[in-house]
């Protein structure tokens, strides 16, 4: 499903060039559950951004569902992102003026899905994350855990094949964190690739595959259980 071959990502910082990723080779199959671990600044988030098509590699080949996506135009990339990839962020990134239901519907609104269909799908995912009765609340009326659940609902509403989560529990208490992880793992059980970037060793242990990145290179790649 995902194949990275010799992926490099360099940043120019002043006069210097920083190698955030050095010749990364990685392949991920459908339904995998991966934790990406590593110290701060090791390049975990950069890897996630490249897989999520938010960032482009400096060198290397990225095949997504056997399609080379490194050469696509911005518009084509935007539509691949829209249809295939769901993001979950540490800071939720909900639009503060929109209600929970409207936030969840946002990807469909941008994609031009008809309102009746939107409503049907929003109702369905709200039930799945257990927030059906909170659909008209704005983000500032929700707890952190509830906000992250709304964000997950937004990520899953377009029925993507990959969900990328960058420190999804980093801003939550452990109870809410557990809820959020359970929802994400349930999505994984349905066959969606789940890639979580985290500092949390416990999450690293829960994932079936754990990748450790140090200084922009994969140090270890372990299948667990």
């Amino acid at each position: 499903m995902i194949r990275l071959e010799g992926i490099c990502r360099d940043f120019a910082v002043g006069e210097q060039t920083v190698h955030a990723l050095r010749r990364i080779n990685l392949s991920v199959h459908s339904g995998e559950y991966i934790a990406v671990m590593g110290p701060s600044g090791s390049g975990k988030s950069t890897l996630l951004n490249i897989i999520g098509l938010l960032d482009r590699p400096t060198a290397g080949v990225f095949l997504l569902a056997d399609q080379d996506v490194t050469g696509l135009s911005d518009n084509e990339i935007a539509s691949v992102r829209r249809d295939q990839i769901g993001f979950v962020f540490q800071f939720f990134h909900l639009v503060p003026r929109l209600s929970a239901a409207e936030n969840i519907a946002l990807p469909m609104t941008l994609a031009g899905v008809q309102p009746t269909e939107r409503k049907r799908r929003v109702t369905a995912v709200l039930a799945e994350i257990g927030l059906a009765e909170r659909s008209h609340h704005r983000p500032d009326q929700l707890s952190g855990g509830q906000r992250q659940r709304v964000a997950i609902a937004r990520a899953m509403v377009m029925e993507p094949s990959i969900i990328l989560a960058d420190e999804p529990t980093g801003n939550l208490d452990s109870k809410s964190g557990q809820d959020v992880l359970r929802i994400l793992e349930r999505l994984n059980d349905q066959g969606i690739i789940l890639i979580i970037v985290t500092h949390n060793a416990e999450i690293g242990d829960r994932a079936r595959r754990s990748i450790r990145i140090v200084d922009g290179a994969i140090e270890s790649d372990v299948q667990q259980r």
Partner: protein
Amino acid sequence: MIVTDVIAFTVRSLQGFRLRTALMLVAMAIGVAAVIVLTALGEGARRFVADQFSALGTHLLIVLPGRSETTGGPPPLLGETPRNLTLDDALALRRLAGVRRVAPISLGNADISVGRRQREVLIVGTNEEYQHVRQLLIGQGRFLATPDPRRLSPECVLGTEVRRELFGPTLALGRWVRLGERRCRVVGVLGTQQHSLGVAMDEIVLVPVAFALTLFNKESLFRVLVEVRSRDRVKQTEQGIRDLIRARHDGEDDVTVIAQDAVLATFDKVLRALTFAVAGIAAIALAVAGVLIMNVMLIAVTQRTAEIGLLKALGAPARQITMLFVSEAAALSLTGAVVGLAVGQLGSWIMARTYPDVPIGAPAWAVWAALGVALATGILFGILPARRAARLDPVSALSRR
């Protein structure tokens, strides 16, 4: 994205930042209202003048003794006396084809007295045609009626103010007044005039032209008003008058003929230019509003960096983000323009109520131009911030909280 969703999204984000939305609406509204009110004033002034002139008949020619022309060469020496424009000249004009009425005018000041009451008045010596040419209203009695203009019939028509001062509440008709060295009988009193064109018609005394010439001991008329039968014959008649007078004045081209149309056209041009100038100044207010919209939209892009990053992560292509921000600017300027239009029209209406004589009202072109310019500036100045938003790097946009 569905159009209704674009509108809903735009409205929601404008509602999300109420103060900034309100400020921008006010700026745009002021700009549009200024354009509407100022053009309404300018247009009102223009139409006021035009109405005044056309009330006098637009096919009017004015013949003045003397030649005033700038044809190059040394200017005429001061004190050069033109040949007289005599009553006979004026009567000869009547025989021209295309001429409907001829009103000779002799002008001068004289004392008027009844018993011990006395004042100085402006005496207008003319004939019965004058009433029609200047569309004078008669309050009491009749206008001058002298079949033979050369006859010295001792009669006069008083302006209302003159009548009031000389006779007070008593009846003026049929009474004799002393005008300078002569006496004449009051045959009529003017009514209150609708179109006075700056002349205080209330303060004049009208007498037969021959009477006035004798009174002032003059040969030459002040001017002759010639009403042409139709508008398209004005040019031809003007030439006819010139030729006739030249023939009568031993080949000297020594009168000036002014077409009322020409005077009107000049006023029209001047006032129209003034309207455009004022509208232009008001348009600067619109441009300022446009720049303000750009500023605020740029701030909005900075404020909403994370949201823009999110939209990109959710799969919005650059042009969609551009479109969303441009439509926000367009919605702002359009709403502001509509509010400004309402305020401007209200202002014009209040002014029109305050000065009912002047037909104040913004012309249609000004309304459309103001709306168009408002929308155009809004979109134009919205494009730069929108493109900046679309170009944001999603990774760095999202890395902020």
